[in-house]
């Protein structure tokens, strides 16, 4: 990868451009762990920002150290599913736990599910994931919950929020996006109202992770 780009043409000529472009357009978030790709985007940011703007996308470079493409209103976009949102928020709250950092920013699936059950509540969690009426058997319910969480984790991994390891989940900087969403407003209700008023919802939007 060349150091500084003189033009958009030079950016597109870079061997990393096709991979990075496809990943960004697929909704993937890139951060420091993606070393080459992230360095490429940050170096070529001024050119890439203008390029994607013409397609109706904002190339967002967050202070927490990650980049992603955000579709503007009127452009086809995807919304994260309820399961992805719940799992993502739970992981983001764990990311803010300094003790997790001391353990290499890794959490087990068990801890994630415990956090979800403790914070959301078991019944509400099953209701939110539309698992409430499927089974009355506790072990089957737990199995269904694990399956939903695993599916959500797979989507979050594809989008660059986490990396799944054999026995744990590595939390990555893009999870701060969930934090940013509730940051700024004085209280949570106002923050959510702002988000809803901001209206990411588009009727034709796909839902990820369904």
């Amino acid at each position: 990868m060349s150091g500084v780009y003189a033009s958009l043409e030079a950016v597109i000529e870079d061997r990393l451009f096709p991979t990075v472009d496809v990943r960004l357009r697929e909704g993937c978030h890139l951060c420091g762990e993606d070393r080459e790709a992230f360095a490429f985007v940050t170096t070529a940011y001024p050119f890439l920002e203008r390029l994607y703007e013409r397609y109706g996308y904002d190339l967002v470079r967050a202070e927490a150290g990650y980049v992603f493409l955000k579709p503007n209103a009127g452009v086809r976009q995807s919304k994260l599913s309820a399961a992805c949102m719940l799992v993502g928020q739970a992981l983001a709250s764990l990311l803010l736990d300094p003790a997790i950092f001391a353990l290499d920013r890794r959490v087990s699936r068990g801890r994630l599910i415990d956090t979800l059950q403790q914070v959301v509540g078991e019944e509400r969690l099953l209701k939110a994931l539309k698992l409430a009426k499927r089974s009355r058997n506790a072990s089957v319910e737990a199995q269904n919950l694990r399956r939903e969480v695993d599916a959500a984790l797979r989507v979050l991994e594809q989008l660059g929020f986490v990396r799944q390891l054999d026995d744990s989940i590595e939390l990555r900087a893009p999870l701060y996006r969930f934090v940013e969403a509730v940051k700024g407003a004085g209280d949570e209700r106002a923050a959510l109202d702002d988000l809803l008023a901001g209206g990411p919802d588009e009727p034709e939007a796909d839902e990820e992770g369904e």
Partner: protein
Amino acid sequence: MDIDRDFARLRTQNVSLALSTADLCCLLVLRVREADAAALLERDVLDLLASVHEQFPEADNPRKRATHGLQRLREQRLVTLVSLGGLAREGEYSLSGLGRGIVDFFVDDAKLTKESLKVLTATLGAQLTRVRDEARAAGTPEQWEERVVVPISVASRSLLEGIERRTRGLDEDQAAVRADIARLLTERWLEAMEQTQGLLEATTARLEELRDVILEEQKGLEAILDDIEGLAQAAGAARAERAVAELVADLARLSGWAVKRHDEWSAYYQSMLQTLRSLVRLDPDRALTQRLRDSLQAWPDRPWSLVVSPRLRIRVLRPVEHAVDRPLVEREHRAEEAITRVAPTTAVPLEVRVLAAVDAGARTLTEVLRVVLPEVPEEARFRDAGRVAEIVASKTLLQTPLERAWTHVRDGLTVEEWQIGGRR
């Protein structure tokens, strides 16, 4: 515990302990070797103690000091003679519980400090120096084996393995430090920042010291080993060469470990500090954590979603291919059974023949069939058998039992047997 009695006993026996730093280092080295052998031969013990005394500046005669040192350790019951040996066999020694306790008190077995590492590597160096002297004097293959190969393969490698064992203990220490940091931050996170930084710095400094000691000592040890290897090559002592090569590989592995651990911990230290600073700036009073939790608790009544770019579906245009004519897949029809049309039996009506047979005395359906069928053309017999049965059923009196037997009439024809009582 009876304090008066124990006090009197200690005073009567005149029990005392007097240990110099050199004595403590001797105990440490014996403790390391003890992990590989339950007891040590007197000659090995004296060799080890001499190599320890060589590292002290006042050591004018290390061998003599080693003999006196061993005597001193025995008198203070720190080392025990476990086997007396005899004229032809040497005595064997092992550390007493007291000796082990003292070493473990001063040098935790699981930990590797700069001081203990220096003692261990210096002891290894002194041992190798003596082996080099022996290699210079060795003339026969037996002498090479006894004075060079065995000391390198057994004594020197066991010392090195002792160091490696402690490095594994150090790895466990690092995991414990991480767990301590996690605990501190969970309990009082802002107040724990300073302590966390202290723990990180202490471990980094310790790893840096160990790395420096290992790299520094490695050079000296490799120089001695090079000398021994050169002597072995000149003498054609292949086993000695191999033993040296193995020890060199072990040393390289040890120094590789030291450098890798130091680098990994430094990276962890930097990332941890950066992250903690970011967290302090981002969420000092944990308000964001609480907001995230509140947002989670609002589900499913107040859901919200992040928006991402939709999945990219690239349409790949392929070269045009003409459609291939594929035959229609259908099931193979079975050949229809050929139907043979049989002309009606008209010469003499069948009913007349059946009734004539009954009148002639046929009393079962089989008997009637055996009379009538031979008069019918061959191809019509099967069909007319049914018609005969129908005529018999309608025109005669049947006496049919509950259990009716099947009777063979002729080739290919078997019927259920009916008893006929006569015409109706």
